[in-house]
């Protein structure tokens, strides 16, 4: 099936994400829009604030390395079995980006509050951690339902990303996208002010009218623009479609360990990409 007429390109999505935007992105296996990530680097995006849902790997690392990011709220940035995230580590150690350390369910809670239009969400745990100690925006109250007082509990404020950005398996010509069981993408789309999606394949038909696809579909009421990007998560995986390009990720980690190696990587795999593709 041809790309629907109302689709835009990955580069156009990148151009519609303004400098300074708070961008919510899913974790590595949630459908990462790597094609748009490279386009953001190509367009020289600056001062992006990343919110990882709840963690990230190469996407955060490469954006940070390319100087696109001024701040990150995350529960973890790691290259998994390929080792630590070199640009992230370097930038934090150098004080080049502002850190908002979180813990996974707190990030979900911040988005769930936004999804509901609630000012906050409560969350157990966290008390006594330095994660909490460094988050002036998180509050502790005594649980009003506890008999006899006491029972402190953390409240997380609603956080509404300016942009949700992810890669989905299918898109149709009615503006629907299908993420299957990736509910973190559904949450991101619901919680954010705008949502941009790249899709791997075009679905022939209306995803909202297909009984079996409906549960995993995000309707156009939440989606601002869609781009068709085959292998758009590469070198990361897309569930039930393709796995990680392990060799490439290993090479990336090796290269990114030095600023020079990282610059070479960008030259070869990001800035040269349009010519190649």
């Amino acid at each position, binding site marked *: 099936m041809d790309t629907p007429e109302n689709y835009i390109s990955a580069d156009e999505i990148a151009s519609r994400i303004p400098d300074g935007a708070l961008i919510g992105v899913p974790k590595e296996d949630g459908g990462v829009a790597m094609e748009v990530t490279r386009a953001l680097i190509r367009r020289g995006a600056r001062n992006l604030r990343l919110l990882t849902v709840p963690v990230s790997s190469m996407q955060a690392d490469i954006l940070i390395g390319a100087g696109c990011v001024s701040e990150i709220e995350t529960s973890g940035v790691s290259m998994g079995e390929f080792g630590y995230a070199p640009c992230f580590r370097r930038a934090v150690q150098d004080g080049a980006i502002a850190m908002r350390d979180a813990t996974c369910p707190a990030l979900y809670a911040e988005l769930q509050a936004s999804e509901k239009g609630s000012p906050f969400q409560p969350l157990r745990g966290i008390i006594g951690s330095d*994660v909490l100690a460094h988050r002036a925006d998180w509050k502790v109250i005594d649980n009003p339902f506890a008999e006899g007082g006491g029972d402190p509990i953390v409240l997380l404020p609603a956080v509404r990303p300016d942009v949700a950005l992810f890669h989905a398996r299918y898109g149709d010509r009615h503006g629907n996208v299908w993420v299957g069981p990736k509910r973190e993408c559904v949450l991101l789309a619901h919680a954010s002010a705008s949502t941009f999606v790249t899709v791997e394949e075009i679905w022939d038909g209306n995803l909202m009218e297909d009984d079996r696809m409906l549960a995993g579909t995000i309707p156009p009421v939440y989606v601002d623009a869609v781009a068709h990007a085959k292998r758009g998560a590469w070198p990361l995986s897309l569930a039930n479609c393709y796995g990680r390009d392990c060799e490439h990720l290993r090479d990336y980690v090796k290269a990114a360990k030095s600023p020079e190696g990282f610059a070479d990587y960008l030259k070869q795999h990001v800035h040269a990409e349009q010519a190649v593709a």
Partner: protein
Amino acid sequence: MGYTGEYAGEYTREELLICAIARMLEGCRNIAVGTASPIPGSAALLMQALTGGTSRASILGSNIHNPFNDGGPELFDRAGQGRVDAFFLGGGQIDGEANINLVSTGPYPEPDTRFPGSFGSAYLYFSVPRVILFREEHSRRVFVDKVDFISAPGWSPPGVHRPGGPHALITSLCIFLYDKEHRRFRLDGLLPGATLEQVRDNTGFDFDCPDDVGPVAPPEPDWIALIHSRIAEEISETYPEFARNRLDWQG
């Protein structure tokens, strides 16, 4: 880390650790395993196999060995309800009160060394009854007197809702059990080749030690057979290199 191969002549360190962890999982209905945890994952799958599925293993990153399907928040929701009985955590630093640090060493927020981040630890350490700390590198760099950053505290003052917490700490040298009342680790067993003196030399925190501390029980022979067949195959879905290099899986 990265150590591979025969060990004590009869069994490998991987076999020993997997079995030691599996024993700690007895009676658990739902065992969840997070990222970068092939040995805990193997232990959870072993327990699942041994109990005929009464113990259920949830391996993060696995499509098959995962009784949950509802995306990211689900593990935390289930843990919050008390439906997750065991979980594993590591730490760039771990101290004698079982505080763990997954964030950084030195000053915060501009540290000497930055680690990935706290992940779900600040929540799961509070909600999962049996959290097993697993950190193979046994050194004073890791096992410190006081962590530089508390990703999750080992204990909480009275009045703080905390059904969960640390149960044990497993390293390449030994197994500690955590004494919640005294907020201290107690040496429970030494791995083959390790000595008490070696543990003391490489541990930056004070711990309790019974007079008669002995070796960790060797792996059950029939469990070893299972590890190299069914478990190796199952874990290879999520950790192919681990299965190949450390469990000799040829599949």
